[in-house]
């Protein structure tokens, strides 16, 4: 019973993700594609919940939907005349790129299908998702955690320095 419900939710989320992702890359109006990007990221957060990654789903909603999308919408508004309908938003490679990506997709799907033996694990994920992640971040993943913090700081300072108006 529960499994069937998960399947239905998975297919709904998949449908939403694929349709909105296609709209993100094909829509003429860049502002509308930003809004569909938000929808797509929400649905990906739903997929994370289906995969028992609750903290990651929350982080996805907070960081992507809350921060990155707002940043993108700000950038679109600040460069507002680039979003008008007169400007062509795609270049001339569309047909070639379509077939190249189709080839990539087919090859990937065939590879996934041809892989016969997956070493499925039988154990369950740790029950307390956030607790385990916190413990791992403070023990085994201490160094990557600190490095990522320094990276965030560098990105923040870099963005401020880049976008500053030069008064001189």
């Amino acid at each position, binding site marked *: 019973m529960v499994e069937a419900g998960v399947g239905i939710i998975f297919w709904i989320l*998949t449908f939403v993700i694929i349709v909105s992702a296609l709209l993100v890359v094909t829509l003429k109006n860049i502002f509308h594609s*930003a809004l569909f990007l938000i929808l797509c990221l929400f649905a990906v957060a739903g997929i994370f919940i289906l995969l028992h990654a609750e903290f990651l789903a929350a982080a996805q909603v907070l960081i992507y939907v809350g921060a990155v999308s707002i940043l993108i919408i700000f950038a679109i508004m600040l460069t507002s005349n*680039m979003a008008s309908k007169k400007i062509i938003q795609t270049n001339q490679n569309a047909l070639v790129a379509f077939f190249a*990506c189709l080839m990539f997709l087919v090859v*990937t799907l065939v590879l996934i299908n041809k892989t016969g033996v997956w070493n499925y*694990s039988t154990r369950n994920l740790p029950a307390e998702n956030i607790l385990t992640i916190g413990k791992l971040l403070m023990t085994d993943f201490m160094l990557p955690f600190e490095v990522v913090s320094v990276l965030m700081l560098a990105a923040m300072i870099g963005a401020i320095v880049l976008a500053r108006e030069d008064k001189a």
Partner: protein
Amino acid sequence: MLYYLGLAAVLFSIGLFGVITRRNVIGILMSLELMFNAANINFVTFNKFILNDGLTGQLFAIFIVVVAAAEATVGLAIVLLLYRNWRGINTDNVSIMKW
């Protein structure tokens, strides 16, 4: 599990298509976010079905989210700078570094 991997493959291909075809730099950044998400779905899927006595895959996905946020910050700052200096953010206008 194969359905999740297939979903990630489809999402990655759509993002790749967007990166190749968009002229607008912001459009390219949005397509990049789609590709990051496809990679994240793969990490979490393998974490659940293959290696599931720890949460290494989920931690990697969290680090990817953070790095993607940093990348978007710097990328959009560069976009604003381009717009200020060139009055346009289409990639074919900004070919000053192409030899």
